[in-house]
């Protein structure tokens, strides 16, 4: 018997099996499902605990908010039906919409709202200024609660409608009263979707189904406000760690939406007729410096580095095409935002290495070693870190770049020890526009001495200017206060803005409503297909 003849059987079997498999397409689901590739894996389910964007996005799926920003960035009532304020702005009353229910069947009450606000205020950057204004939250009846202020506070609605960082997401009082020292794992909300815990595969998939008990507003969806009645019965958030596979899955139509398209794939996807590329929210690269130790405890050194930074080169290093990055953004508060101002940026609008070297020399820098933490596992952070390393060296700084994963940087940056004793001098990171678009939300510009944020900037003048901006209610004066704040920020340089860019999302062409997606926060209830 010829051996080739002997192997014909398995070969035929393999071919037949292949054809059978090819013909056996997965059964089409009866339910209308949106398959969404999230930018990260959901690990923590408590959006009142961490500022991780993926957890915030999870929060928007299952919780609702008292107020929300519409597509124009204006705060609008969401769970609140109506509100009143006294003439002096010190007393506010809020009434909840009737019929709101949590996913466990219980009715949403004013006590739940107040407990959720109190939990939020212990974590969010609006908490301290609200407390400084003497804010007291009181339950009046099952549907109504009150805010009593000792001092006027002009940003009450902005605070309650804050879209990112820590949004005010309403949970049952019994959960909201739990200690804030560790995350809550129970998920009970009144939002548009229910979390299917039984189908959750950490590291792979999060499943949501439409919440039958959700009570939408009558207004159409706009930004994060209005009706959140979803068109999809089921939403699957997939975590695809391989960029190539996620893009291939989008091209093939296995997934409907990729939240963050890696820069390398933007150009090829532009020529794919089945995919729409959508601009996401603005992001800002940041060089965070440790103000406790030399050389960055000296503002003149920080100014010298700022003069050496070319935002265009930092953005280019990340790989974004020209139309998705800015050559220069003068403001700390996102170019194009309501708080966009060039005040104070005049000396730094052009990069000048010779001038930067001179400034460094005049600063008294003695060649102290700079320990730069280089993130090795996150491509865009790695690009920013390597550019920072080159920039610092190009003006004559003695830099020791230490490569480590982002997890290790997260641990090391919290250490206050001297750099040679396990601490650090600098690292790079990025922030979404909602985390930096005003003096109150931009945590790294919070320079209250004794603050605990890694970097530990301390500048009494800047902190006072921040407080002045927060307490000012007249728009014109507020603008002046903003300019004064930013001028001082450019003098003291709490951190360095490395440039503004705009990541892209990718959607299948058959997906409707993508023009109503807003601010890089996946308000998926606006989508349909």
């Amino acid at each position: 018997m010829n051996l080739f003849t002997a192997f014909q059987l398995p070969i035929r079997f393999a071919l037949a099996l292949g054809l059978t498999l090819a013909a056996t397409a997965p059964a089409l689901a009866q339910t209308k499902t949106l398959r969404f590739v999230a930018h990260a894996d959901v690990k923590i389910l408590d959006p009142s605990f961490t500022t991780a964007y993926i957890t915030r996005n999870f929060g928007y799926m299952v919780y609702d908010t008292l107020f929300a920003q519409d597509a124009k960035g204006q705060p609008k009532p969401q769970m609140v039906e109506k509100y009143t304020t006294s003439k002096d702005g010190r007393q506010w009353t809020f009434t909840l919409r009737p019929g709101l229910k949590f996913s466990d069947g219980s009715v949403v009450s004013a006590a739940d709202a107040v407990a959720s606000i109190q939990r939020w205020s212990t974590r969010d950057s609006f908490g301290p200024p609200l407390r400084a204004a003497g804010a007291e939250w009181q339950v009046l009846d099952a549907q109504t609660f009150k805010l009593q202020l000792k001092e006027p506070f002009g940003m009450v609605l902005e605070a309650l409608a804050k879209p990112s960082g820590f949004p005010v997401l309403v949970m049952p009082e019994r959960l909201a009263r739990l200690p804030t020292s560790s995350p809550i794992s129970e998920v009970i909300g009144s939002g548009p979707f229910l979390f299917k815990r039984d189908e959750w595969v950490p590291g792979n998939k999060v499943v949501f189904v439409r919440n039958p008990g959700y009570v939408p507003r009558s207004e159409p969806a706009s930004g994060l406000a209005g009706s959140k009645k979803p068109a999809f019965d089921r939403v699957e958030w997939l975590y695809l760690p391989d960029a190539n596979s996620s893009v291939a899955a989008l091209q093939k139509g296995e997934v409907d939406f990729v939240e963050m398209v890696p820069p390398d794939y933007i150009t090829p996807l532009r020529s794919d007729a089945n995919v729409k590329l959508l601009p996401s929210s603005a992001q800002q690269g940041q060089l965070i410096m440790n103000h406790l130790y030399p050389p960055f405890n000296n503002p003149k050194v920080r100014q010298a580095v700022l003069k050496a930074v070319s935002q265009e080169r930092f953005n280019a290093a990340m790989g974004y095409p020209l139309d998705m990055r800015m050559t220069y953004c003068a403001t700390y508060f996102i170019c194009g935002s309501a708080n966009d101002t060039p005040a104070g940026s005049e000396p730094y609008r052009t990069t000048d290495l010779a001038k930067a070297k001179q400034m460094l020399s005049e600063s008294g820098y003695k060649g102290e070693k700079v320990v730069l933490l280089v993130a090795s596992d996150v491509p865009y952070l790695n690009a920013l870190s390597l550019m920072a390393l080159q920039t610092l060296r190009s003006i004559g700084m003695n830099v020791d770049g230490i490569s480590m994963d982002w997890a290790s940087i997260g641990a090391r940056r919290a250490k206050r020890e001297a750099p040679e004793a396990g601490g650090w001098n600098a690292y790079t990171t990025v922030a979404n526009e909602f985390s930096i678009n005003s003096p109150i939300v931009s945590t790294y510009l919070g320079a209250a001495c004794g603050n605990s944020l890694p970097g530990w900037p301390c500048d009494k003048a800047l902190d006072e200017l921040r407080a002045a901006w927060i307490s000012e209610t007249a728009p014109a004066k507020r603008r002046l206060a903003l300019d004064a704040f930013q001028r001082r920020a450019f003098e003291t340089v709490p951190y360095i803005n490395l440039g503004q860019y705009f990541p892209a999302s990718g959607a299948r062409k058959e997906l409707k409503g993508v023009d109503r997606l807003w601010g890089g926060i996946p308000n998926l209830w606006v989508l349909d297909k």
Partner: protein
Amino acid sequence: MNYLLRRLFATLPVMAVVAVVVFLLIHLSPGDPAALIAGDLATTEDIEKLRAALGLDQPLWRQFALWLGRVLSGDLGMSIFTQVPVTKLLAQRLEPTLSIAVLTMALTVCVAVPLGTLAAHRAGSWTDRLVMLFAVLAFSVPVFLIGYLLIYTFAIRIPLFPVQGYVHLSEGVGAWLNSLALPCINLALVYIALITRMTRATVMEVLQEDYIRTARAKGLGVLAVLGHALRNAAIPIATTVGVGIALLIGGVVVTETVFAIPGIGRLVIDSVQHHDYPVIQSVLLLSAGVYVLINLLIDLSYRLFDPRIQY
């Protein structure tokens, strides 16, 4: 039976050493899960509070004792991040991992053993050279590259299979096989290359033996002769297949990542990246157990191929 008991008893010190080494390695490496959980804008005080809540501020020996006590009572603990029991995380990953391991090895054995035998039978011919060329290529080209090529060819250009994802067996055998086809072919290529070469070498050696010459002189057909040869060449092949299964169960990170298969490999890498101590410790301890068990099974299987072996 005595041998079996002795071997099982001998696994205890191995597991103890693994437990200590794994615990020390991951706790002494830089990184802090509390800092990661707390997020980008957490203060030093927030992180310290969380460390205390998670028990990470306890002395290392105490953390080890607590973990060991729980493991001995059958409780693998909870993921620090997701608050999901480690046993549940493992259970979720077991089916995809076992599916990949079994299908990959089945495919490997079905292809590699006949191919290696054919190459040995035709040693020196163009057939042999072609088989060896294939083996060298399949072994040398990086797994992720082959994965991307498979996706491009058989998922994008010729849309036979999905790009990514795993379908559970309970959702239908066809869909299950469909979702595993590309990852298993991707992985099997490496093992096919390895086992083909091994089969060829051992079969060629056996084919030189006197009893094979005798068999041929008696007029036995080619297939019967090769059958005799294969049985005598089976021990190294079985060993490689066994180790291959253990490696596949231990996790195949690259393939699981490229095809988005939620297997043990991704779980380990993800846990290491996040310093999720309870998950890493449990998975590595179990992986060590699987290795020990499979090695034992391999040893026991030798008797099937060669009854002269006694324990």
